[in-house]
């Protein structure tokens, strides 16, 4: 599903050049659950952003479902993204001005789903995440664990083939964290490919494979059994 080769991303400021990704190559097959680990600043988030088509690499090749997307423009990336990829962030990133229902509904609006279908689909997902009773609350009225469940609901509402999660449990206590990990595992078992960045060895154990990074490169891969 994902095949990147010699991907490079360099951040240039006035004085310094930071090589965030240094000719990295990774493959992810459909249905896999991959964890990415590494010390702070090694380029995990940068990689995830590129995989999620939020950012473009400087050089290298990126095949997404066998389509070369490394040189897609913003509009094309948005098009591909909204139909195929869901995101879960460490800091939830829910829109404070929207209710739980509306936050989850958002991706459907941008993919042009009809209003009745949207309602059905959102309710289904909220039900599955067990936050239906909070549908009309605003994010600030929810606990961290609840907010992340909403974020996961939002990530899956479009039935994406790929979910990218950047430290999804980073802001949660262990019980809420485990709950989210269970949700992701369930999704993976139903066929969704998941790529997750994490600092927690505990969470990484939920995955099939751990990619360890250092200074913008992969240094080790652990296959889980």
């Amino acid at each position, binding site marked *: 599903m994902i095949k990147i080769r010699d991907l490079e991303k360099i951040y240039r400021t006035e004085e310094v050049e930071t090589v965030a990704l240094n000719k990295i190559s990774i493959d992810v097959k459909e249905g896999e659950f991959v964890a990415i680990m590494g010390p702070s600043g090694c380029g995990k988030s940068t990689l995830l952003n590129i995989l999620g088509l*939020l950012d473009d690499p400087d050089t290298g090749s990126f095949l997404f479902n066998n389509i070369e997307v490394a040189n897609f423009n913003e509009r094309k990336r*948005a*098009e591909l993204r909204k139909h195929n990829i869901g*995101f879960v962030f460490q800091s939830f990133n*829910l*829109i404070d001005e929207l209710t739980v229902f509306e936050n989850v509904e958002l991706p459907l609006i*941008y993919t042009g789903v009809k*209003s009745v279908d949207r309602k059905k689909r959102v309710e289904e997902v909220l039900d599955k995440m067990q936050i239906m009773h909070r549908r009309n609350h605003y994010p600030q009225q929810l606990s961290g664990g609840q907010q992340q469940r909403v974020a996961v609901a*939002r990530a899956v509402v479009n039935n994406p083939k790929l979910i990218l999660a950047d430290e999804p449990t980073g802001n949660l206590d262990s019980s809420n964290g485990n709950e989210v990990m269970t949700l992701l595992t369930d999704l993976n078992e139903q066929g969704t490919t998941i790529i997750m960045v994490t600092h927690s060895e505990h969470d990484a154990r939920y995955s099939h494979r751990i990619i360890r990074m250092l200074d913008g490169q992969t240094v080790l891969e652990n296959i889980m059994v």
Partner: protein
Amino acid sequence: MFKHYLKISFRNLAQQKVLTGINILGLSIGIACFSLFLLYAVNEFSYDRFHTKADRIYRIIEWWEGEGREPGGSGSISTPVAPAMKKDFPDVEYAVRTTDRGCLARVNDHVFHTSITFADADFFNIFSFPLIRGDVHTALKDPGHLVVTREKALTLFGTTDVVGKTIQIKIDTAYKPFTISAVAENIPANSSKSFQLLGNFEHLANTEMVKQSSNNWHMTIGIDAFVLLKQESRLATDHKRLALFRKKYAEEEIQDRKELKKGKGKKDQQQAVQSGIRLQPLRDIHMNPQVEGGADPKNIWILITIAAAVLLIACINFTTLAIGRSAGRAKEIGVRKVMGSERKQLIVQFLSESFLLSVLSAVTGLILACVLLPLFNQLAGRQLYFSFSRFPELMWLLGGLTLLVGLLAGSYPALVLSSFNPVEVLKRKIRVGGSNLFTRSLVTLQFVLSIGLIISTIVILQQIAFMRSKNIGFNKENVVMINTQRVDAKRIYPLYKQAIQSNTGIMDITAGEMGLGSGEGQMGRGYRNYKEEISGVIEYPGDYNFLNALGMQLVAGRYFDPAIASDTMSAVIVNEELVHTVLGTTTANALGKTINTAKGNNPPKTIIGISRNFNFEDLTHQVRPQLFSRPANLEPARIYVRLQAGDPAAKLALLSNAWKKLVPDAPFEYNFVDEKFDLFYKSEERWSTIAGWAGGISIFLACLGLFGLAALAAVNRTKEIGIRKVMGATVTQVAGLLSKDFIKLITIALVIASPPAWYFMNNWLQSYAWRINITWWVFGLAGLFSLLVAVTTISIQAIKAAMANPVNSLRTE
């Protein structure tokens, strides 16, 4: 999708109550101002369009052009022109003359002074003034017929059911009965032709003036004439045919002119002025400044520009506040992009927010405009009302305006906000401080406009005060000027003088054939000194004591003397200007010289006195040559009474009582001369009021924006302020930190605004022969005022932010 945008827009607006309030208040004030001026402009440009045959109606005008002269025309045309045109040109379907006269009228026993219009019987065949009683074909059929307007019928009779009733009207010397034949609907405000009472022109045929002028192609007696051309006629642009027509009738006059020119020097021949008859489209009358009485469309564009400036300031508020708030929206934008929103969709979302706001503002703005309309009407001197049926163009103009405002205000924020990189905003990398170079420039622009308007207001006010207080060369205070045009003044004047002169409080009494001040006519005949003809000498036939009673001073010679018989025949007093420009000599040499009238065989006049120049016109004019005489046959049009200074009420009562005893059948009409002079500056006063209001509103709007920006700056810098306070900054230091930026901007605005404001106002002042110099402190004052208002506004926010507990502000992160 659209419903989603609308819902989010509403929620966003509702959540940011203060900002939304500022935006709606500002925009609606801007839109209210603009729509009022728009209404005014639409009304001005709609003049006379309501006549169904408007495109075929033309006014006959006299047109001059030639070297050394701006081309221009006059609607005053000699009496025989219109009937001759009807006779000579088959293209002319109808031709009518109209003229306005003042008269005394009597209904039952009530006598009043009114104006009456006389028109040829075809009046209603040309113009579409609807009648509510009577029939257009017969309304003016008979010389004794009279058409009254609904308004006039109601004031005179209390009903519009007045056909057949009689009104006594005194045109020359005796009252004559007129029978009301029809009642016309009130004349629309956007009609340049208007009447209250309309009589048949034939009725004037027997008056001395019309008789004299009826075959005279050189004499004008205040007649306007209109023709209705046939559909296919091209007469209006056929200057050749019109010239031939003029030549046929006015041959001898042209001959006259040629001879006159032979006697003149070369210089004058070069400046030969061609005059001719032209046809001016009816719809052109109100807005063509080249023809006397036409308004200058330039003024309307100036007004629209001012209104647009006010609106722009309000739009800028929206833009800067939206940008200022972007920090708070960055996350929303990032998330939306991650969720698959394209930039285009975000632009649409932000624009729909600003459109929603502009629609709300337009609605409140229109309501505000309706509330302010009476005030505005007073200012504009018009009777305007919002009517989409009368001005259908208003509908799309206002609709377009609303769209434009939304676009203007919302497009920059939409472009900026939608361009945020989602990765960066979600990482809180982008510093969206709310004040980039662009928004700073916008705030500066707001203050440039406001300060410019304030400077203009101060300069206009200064010039008005200067003109009011200028010693114009005679004593205009405490002089009552009584209108004696409608009475047998020759007989009344001495009697009236006798009746009042011995009373205490009456200082002096005199009379003249001309009035003084705004709205008074001027009489000028050509004068000839040796060979040269000089036109533009203004004459004041008056009583012996005219000059001394009004406080005009002599620089040489003597006043008129009743004891010297020749003073009423051949003596004149002239002003210094006449000595210098007409005679080309010094005051010392001018005494005893004679001058001749250019036409007629009047005896030469000897100069017995020279008066010091005084301003008898408004101060845009230099003093012109002036000549005073004491005709043996003085027919006063005005009696001047100088009162003792102090409360005039008792003295006025005395004057009025004496008048009523003497002339019971005519009203006592008077003015104070100084007030008549003040009237000269009505238009300046109007401009100062407009500029003052616009300046006040602009500064208010600009400060409204500042208020919002300062609030946002405080919010965006909450953390910084908290840290600074923890480090030991005082409230004043923090408040200063927040205000410093804005004060800098206003100072820059003052520097930018001053040169163009100086340039424009200096230009404006050039039209005044007597004017002030613009002093530097005007700019200082305007700047100081703006700064004061702005600092007050900002301080409220800055102090609030500075006083907040730093622990609270640090916890928000």
